[in-house]
């Protein structure tokens, strides 16, 4: 069964550094998402992306965050200058159509020191 793949599985970075989290959504999917889950807390929506543009973003997704679909397969989340509080699991998700279910990747654990 096709799946959403995320790399790396674990990323450690120093505060103030830029990080790029990578995702390869399921190949025929059209809607892409990033969620995050701080340890012990709920999964939170960050941003949705459709037709090469952001369709919605949450309050968490400030100017330090950006997303890109640089080619036909990758979907990236960039954090420009990481803060300690950015430490979390970041999940990429995709779906094929409006009404189809979300498929989540296994996440990237980001640790900011």
């Amino acid at each position, binding site marked *: 069964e096709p799946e*959403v793949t995320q790399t790396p599985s674990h990323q450690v970075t120093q505060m103030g550094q830029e990080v790029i989290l990578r995702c390869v959504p399921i190949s025929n999917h059209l*809607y892409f*998402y990033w*969620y995050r889950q701080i340890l012990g*807390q*709920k*999964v*939170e*929506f960050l941003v*949705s992306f*459709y037709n090469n543009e952001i*369709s*919605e973003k*949450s309050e968490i997704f400030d100017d330090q965050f950006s997303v890109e679909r640089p080619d036909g397969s990758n979907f990236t989340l960039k954090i420009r200058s990481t803060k300690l509080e950015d430490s979390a699991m970041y*999940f990429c*998700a995709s*779906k094929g159509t*409006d*009404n189809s*279910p*979300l*498929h*989540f*990747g*296994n*996440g990237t654990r980001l640790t900011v020191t």
Partner: protein
Amino acid sequence: TQLLEQSPQFLSIQEGENLTVYCNSSSVFSSLQWYRQEPGEGPVLLVTVVTGGEVKKLKRLTFQFGDARKDSSLHITAAQPGDTGLYLCAGDNYGGSQGNLIFGKGTKLSVKP
């Protein structure tokens, strides 16, 4: 701010027992989804309920959406150790292409043999 409250937060039972997990909100959702999440993995969709009063069965799991579309329950009959995991409910107020899901904090279920 829309919130989904799940209860109980933790549940430890013996194999063969029945259990119910609740997901409540003061807000109306166009649909509600139940996920299961294993450690180190992303959420995996179990079911989506859309119509108020809807009941869906998945083997020993029964999902119900409240008449007012504000709450939902997951009932497991004759629980088995393989049911152990984190169960998440998530509400979709927008539906359509936005996919901005609001997650509950989850119920961590442990089924002892």
